């Protein structure tokens, strides 16, 4: 009996203290898989005493479904900017309190300006990492099939049916993300990558994709990393850091596979993954602390060193390995940068048209 009383007392005390302390020391983070340095969370926990519950997802779609159904339970989420724009419209985020983000000034000002097209006034989000959507190549297999003068720096590699036909047997794959592939094709065709012309979508864009469709082995947004590293596929439309990871893994396995990543000369899409706090987050204070932590130069340098994606903190660049910062496929040179375009945000009607075109295309209908 005494023990029970003691327990009750202890619980009452615990409740009282958490009440006084405003927030329990917990933070629920939902991030992409393999998208943070090994020690980042441990450092944050050690510094703040906040316990991080860290879950991972593999696609923007799954994250969005959770956000839209509400009460995800997460305090920090990491959608890509195009998805974020729509989620802001749906009203799922809370505005950031900049007074709680002293490191905010570290952010890259021109980039923040660019991002206002997705997040007006930068009210709801800060950029985490960014990259390009380009082509990963198995150099050996591709050269063997196309000879030395292969168009390794052009989208012809995947969008020209004659060339794609020659590569079909060693495997071409494409991201399963129409909202990135369609602007890329538009850009390849010399059209405005931000075009929302349905006639163009179901006409020229679809024709281009249909022509190479028989040569594409699969559409998937993550499987290609492993397959590229193993030599199971030879050309893949994918995300910069993921392909660099494949490169790394092939090196490590010493299996004779040489992977390279190119930003084609026609230009490529630029994407940003953003940090945001859901409206119904139960630990917004801790979330702000975490966001602030992720704007520190040393922290972001550590993350970039681990995942090989550039970040939005210019001051961190000198702490990042030169191998990464000097690689134009990671940090594009100013000339390449001129050809990069940001992926557009689509209205629901075009959204539906695009995703249907994509489903039909994939199934070969």
């Amino acid at each position: 009996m005494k023990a029970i009383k003691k327990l009750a007392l202890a619980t009452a005390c615990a409740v009282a203290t958490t009440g006084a302390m405003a927030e329990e020391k917990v933070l629920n983070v939902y991030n992409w898989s393999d998208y943070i340095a090994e020690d980042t969370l441990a450092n944050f926990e050690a510094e703040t005493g906040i316990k991080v519950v860290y879950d991972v997802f593999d696609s923007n779609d799954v994250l969005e479904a959770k956000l839209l159904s509400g009460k995800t339970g997460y305090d920090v989420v990491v959608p890509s900017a195009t998805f974020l724009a729509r989620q802001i419209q749906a009203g799922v985020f809370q505005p950031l309190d900049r007074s709680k983000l002293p490191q905010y000034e570290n952010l890259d000002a021109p980039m923040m300006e660019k991002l206002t097209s997705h997040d007006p006034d930068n009210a709801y989000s800060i950029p985490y990492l960014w990259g390009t959507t380009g082509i990963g190549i198995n150099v050996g297999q591709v050269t063997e099939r196309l000879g030395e003068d292969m168009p390794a720096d052009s989208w012809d590699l995947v969008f020209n049916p004659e060339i794609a036909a020659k590569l079909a047997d060693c495997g071409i794959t494409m991201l399963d993300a129409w909202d990135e592939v369609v602007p890329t094709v538009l850009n390849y065709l010399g059209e405005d990558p931000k075009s929302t012309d349905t006639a163009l979508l179901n006409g020229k864009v679809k024709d281009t994709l249909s022509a190479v469709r028989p040569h594409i082995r699969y559409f998937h947004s993550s499987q290609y990393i492993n397959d590229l590293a193993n030599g199971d596929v030879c050309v893949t439309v994918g995300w910069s850091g993921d392909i660099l990871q494949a490169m790394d893994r092939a090196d490590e396995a010493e299996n004779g596979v040489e992977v390279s990543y190119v930003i084609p000369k026609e230009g490529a899409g630029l994407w940003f993954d953003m940090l945001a706090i859901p409206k119904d987050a139960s630990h917004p204070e801790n979330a702000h602390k975490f966001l602030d932590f992720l704007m520190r130069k040393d922290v972001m340098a550590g993350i970039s060193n681990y995942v090989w994606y550039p970040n939005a903190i210019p001051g961190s660049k000198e702490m990042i390995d030169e191998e990464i910062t000097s690689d134009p496929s990671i940090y594009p040179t100013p000339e390449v940068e001129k050809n990069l375009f940001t992926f557009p945000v689509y209205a629901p009607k075009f959204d539906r048209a695009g995703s249907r075109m994509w489903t039909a295309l994939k199934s070969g209908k």
Partner: protein
Amino acid sequence: MSTNKTNKLSWAILLGGFAFLYLPIFILIVYSFNESRLVTVWAGFSTKWYGELFEDEQMMSAVWMSLKIAFLSASAAVALGTLAAIALVRSGAFKGKTLFTGMITAPLVMPEVITGLSLLLLFVTMSQVLGWPEGRGSLTIWIAHTTFNMAYVAVVVSARLRELDRRLEEAAMDLGANKFQVFIYITLPIVAPALLAGWLLAFTLSLDDLVIASFVSGPGSTTLPMVVFSSVRLGVSPKINALATLLVLAVAMAAFIAWWFMRRNELQRQKEIRSAFSQ
């Protein structure tokens, strides 16, 4: 002569069938001892993946989460499913029995995507209207798994209950046992194998479920299939092969022990029957 031929044929069929069923499992076991990270290359014998498995916190916590949910949902499903089976077989007619029968069998055949989607929408609506469940997590996964598992348990147990000879129970009652005693001493021991089978089935189904859990999960409730599914990104790690090998080993051992006990009981019973006759 011809029976000999048929025997040979049936052995060939069994061997072929088992080869098909066990080929992937055999591969898993072999490659869990592979030195190389790549699944297709053999680079020498090594047990290092077993060590790495136990050091991988994310995977181990997912394993625990899955085992916990599987254990709890299988147990709840056995309780609810047995009640449902009794209601189906023993309760005679009651209002809404057709609906009840339909609802018991429907989860068996409901495609997972629909079950997952509908439960997610239910939890969303409930938390809006009732404020419960507050968020999604292991509780909501448990509810979802219990729901489809109880259907399986109900089917398994009701089949056994129907086979049960009612005269045994009646005889016991004639001898003065009350309903409760009859249930404990007569009905339960006879239905027990079905309860065990139902529990094991439910445990497995829960352990395997990816689709429904991905719909209704929340923070800190990542289950093993979710980890395995997302590991396709960097290829299936030999750690997962090691985990699968341990699973196979545990299951095989449990199954063999169960079989041995069943066999012993059977022999015992035959002996008793024989001695009863000889007296």
